């Protein structure tokens, strides 16, 4: 009998629903009619429905929601300005209902035997409630050991949400729980509401979290900074004045990557593929490249293939590269080695790695000067000038949260609700087809919208509503406007200054003196092999400012001198001097700090074996102008023009022009990262 009544009720609902289209033509406002119909359907007594009947009922209601959604869409196109806001709000709420119903229906399809009762959306307040998977998205179980005590009897215990008391054995993640736990916290969650024009400091943080959710496919990342999000939302909702102050705060940018120009991996300057005639002493990046490629890195410039590594990277291959191991490695992080092979096979570059193709190998040892951020000087600067400022911001946040948490009895519970339920909501959204089909940017937007809507409905409105759980007193408003926000503003302003100081300090790092000793062994297929020892020096803060001075002094020795070719043990003496300058590039993006670099290089070489040979010159001089112009996306154009009075083989003077294209993947990565942060 009960079944018959249920079926007749559902049948009448479906008939009612099908008449909606007819009604649309018969009444002046078709949406109004639809609203009334939905209201009637929502008031239906569903408790006696069988699962099958309940499913039909839900489908009918979902259809009605969708029709109303379409109707509102149509109405919006011709709505006046005054109507738009309310229509949009209604549409957003409706879309939430549609979303929840679609999820609920999908859930019931997945587990058709499930008792429908717990998953029924509560319709009495016309707001759908959490679905089962939301309910076991997290739990607030109290594990009570050796008894069923009611906590330790402190005053705050009395303000607790009704927690399920059980001796359950929790699993590693809430989502992994086998049996759904009724989570009162998530059940009380309000459906999301559109958060138009959120404060920049909040939307930046939400966007970052959403990006981490989408990029790492991890819904937990949605709540990494939920504490700050809740706080900023309260500040936004507290009063018009606090909202204005909050919106005036600097959008917090982390102290992070800027362009570095001290990179040089590649063959020695006298190789055929080399653009510059001078060698820089730094090899900090050698360590990085080597590690990133499993100990050994390769670089092919078309003419030469250079494989490089460092003793530290080999040391770190067992046990990993941790900051502690780096410190333990001592002198190992000062030594780098590289080998260059002539490229004969362009298709299989590693086929070139054989003894016959080896054109040179080298080792570099850093003698003095440290340009890394691990240098003592930088660490002192960081500890003294920057750490306290980072701390001050964290403490400003902590002070605000702690004060509000102590004064508002529901603060902790409401924040807890967000941090426990949002990952479940994000996970559900990520399971939907449109999310899966979307590109990364769209996925980020979807998750960001979800978080913002959640904050609006569950935090903002709790502050604004007359009976909201986060209703603030005048005294609390005064604290927010007069203490919390000014404190946070000071901390953020100081960090902006710190950021500038960090950039300056890092720029200064690259200006200190740096010296390395290099040993290079050249393999000459049609001549005698020889070795070169070279002292490389670089100084930026010298007499020649703003030009940077780079100097190389070295001698080369034959491994086996050939007397028939007039060779002695000492092959040559060489010295090179370079003056480098830089200027701003007009071709790069705003956040790309790469500069146009140019240098004037003079090089002198005394080749002892050319003495007394009429067709050769013992004293060879060269003058070179080198320039590198950075473009967008990490691309740059290095070029050089060289005049020399002779070569090692010929007495004839000559002029040579070299150019190429370089793609700096580090820079490209940073630019993409900066762009996606915006």
């Amino acid at each position: 009998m009960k079944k018959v009544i249920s079926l007749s009720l559902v049948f009448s609902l479906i008939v009612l629903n099908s008449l909606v289209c007819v009604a649309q033509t018969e009444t002046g406002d078709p949406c109004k009619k639809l609203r009334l119909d939905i209201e009637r359907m929502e008031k239906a007594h569903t408790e006696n429905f069988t699962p099958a009947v309940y499913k039909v009922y839900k489908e009918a209601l979902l259809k009605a929601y969708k029709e109303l959604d379409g109707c509102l869409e149509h109405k919006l196109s011709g709505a006046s300005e005054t109507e738009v806001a309310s229509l949009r709000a209604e549409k957003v709420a409706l879309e939430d209902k549609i979303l929840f119903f679609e999820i609920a229906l999908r859930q019931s399809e997945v587990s058709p035997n499930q008792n429908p009762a717990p998953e029924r959306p509560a319709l009495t307040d016309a707001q759908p409630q959490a679905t089962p998977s939301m309910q076991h998205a997290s739990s607030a179980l109290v594990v009570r050991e050796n008894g069923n005590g009611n906590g330790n009897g402190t005053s705050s215990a009395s303000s607790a949400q009704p927690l399920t008391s059980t001796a359950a054995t929790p699993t590693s993640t809430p989502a992994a729980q086998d049996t759904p736990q009724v989570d009162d916290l998530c059940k009380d969650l309000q459906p999301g509401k559109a958060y138009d024009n959120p404060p920049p400091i909040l939307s930046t943080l939400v966007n970052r979290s959403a990006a981490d959710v989408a990029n790492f496919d991890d819904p937990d990342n949605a709540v990494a900074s939920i504490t700050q999000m809740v706080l900023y939302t309260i500040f936004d909702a507290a009063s018009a004045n606090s909202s204005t102050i909050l919106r005036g705060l600097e959008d917090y940018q982390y102290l992070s990557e800027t362009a570095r120009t001290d990179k040089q991996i590649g063959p020695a300057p006298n190789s055929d593929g080399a653009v510059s005639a001078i060698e820089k002493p730094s090899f900090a990046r050698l360590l990085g490249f080597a590690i990133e490629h499993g100990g050994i890195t390769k670089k092919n410039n078309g003419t030469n293939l250079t494989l490089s590594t460092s003793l530290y990277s080999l040391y770190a291959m067992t046990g990993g590269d941790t900051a502690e191991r780096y410190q333990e490695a001592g002198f190992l992080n000062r030594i780098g080695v590289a080998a260059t092979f002539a490229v004969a096979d362009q298709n299989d570059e590693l086929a070139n790695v054989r003894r016959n193709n080896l054109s040179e190998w080298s080792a570099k040892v850093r003698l003095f000067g440290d340009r890394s951020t691990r240098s003592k000087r930088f660490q002192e600067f960081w500890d003294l000038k920057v750490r306290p400022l980072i701390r001050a911001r964290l403490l400003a946040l902590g002070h605000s949260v702690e004060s509000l948490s102590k004064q508002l009895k529901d603060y902790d519970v409401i924040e807890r609700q967000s941090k426990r339920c949002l990952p479940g909501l994000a996970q559900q959204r990520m399971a939907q087809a449109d999310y899966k089909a979307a590109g990364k940017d769209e996925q980020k937007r979807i998750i960001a919208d979800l978080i913002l809507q959640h904050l609006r409905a569950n935090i903002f409105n709790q502050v604004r509503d007359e009976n909201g759980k986060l209703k603030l007193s005048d005294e609390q408003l005064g604290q927010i406007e007069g203490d919390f926000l000014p404190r946070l503003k000071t901390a953020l302003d100081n960090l902006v200054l710190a950021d500038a100081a960090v950039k300056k300090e890092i720029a200064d790092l690259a200006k200190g003196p740096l010296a390395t000793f290099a040993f290079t062994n050249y393999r000459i297929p049609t001549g005698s092999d020889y070795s070169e020892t070279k002292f490389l020096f670089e100084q930026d803060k010298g007499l020649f400012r703003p030009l940077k001075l780079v100097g190389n002094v070295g001698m080369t020795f034959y491994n086996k001198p050939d007397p028939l070719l007039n060779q002695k043990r000492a092959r040559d003496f060489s010295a090179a001097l370079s003056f480098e300058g830089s200027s701003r590039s007009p071709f790069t993006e705003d956040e790309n700090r790469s500069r146009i670099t140019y240098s004037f290089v003079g090089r002198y070489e005394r080749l002892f074996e050319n003495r007394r040979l009429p067709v050769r010159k013992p004293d060879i001089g060269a003058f070179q102008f080198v320039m590198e112009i950075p473009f967008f996306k990490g691309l740059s154009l290095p070029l050089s023009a060289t005049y020399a009075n002779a070569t090692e083989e010929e007495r004839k003077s000559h002029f040579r022009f070299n150019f190429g294209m370089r793609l700096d993947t580090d820079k490209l990565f940073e630019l993409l990262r900066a762009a996606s942060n915006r």
Partner: protein
Amino acid sequence: MRKVNKFSYDVRRGEKITITVVPKDFLGELPSVEATLDDEEDQKLVNTGTNNKPIFVFTVKKPFNATHRVFMEFTFLPGTPDKACYEVTIGGQNDVGCPCGFKICKTNQNLEPVISFDVLLVDQTNSDSESAQEDA
């Protein structure tokens, strides 16, 4: 301690919490982690490790149903390799659902997580002794 999600844990009053941070693949660049506990008025977060491997320790002192929050900020300085990460391990007593913690890499966009410790677990033995002390 019981894991709720990567950034939320249920703890007992009196429980000692240890947060260990291991910076990996930083090579010659300085890792930097800053962490504070609540407003640092009642208790400071002590780094018992080094800057190369910070170990932050505190004891849960708040009452039942309250929350301790550890505010953190991770920095990746210029020149840090792209695959650099901080591996954060969180441990308490009689941990459930662990290994607990998370990883913040250079590829992460959010570098300021907050770890929440909700005092929702109750050890009856401790509770009784505390009540007895309070009564006394």
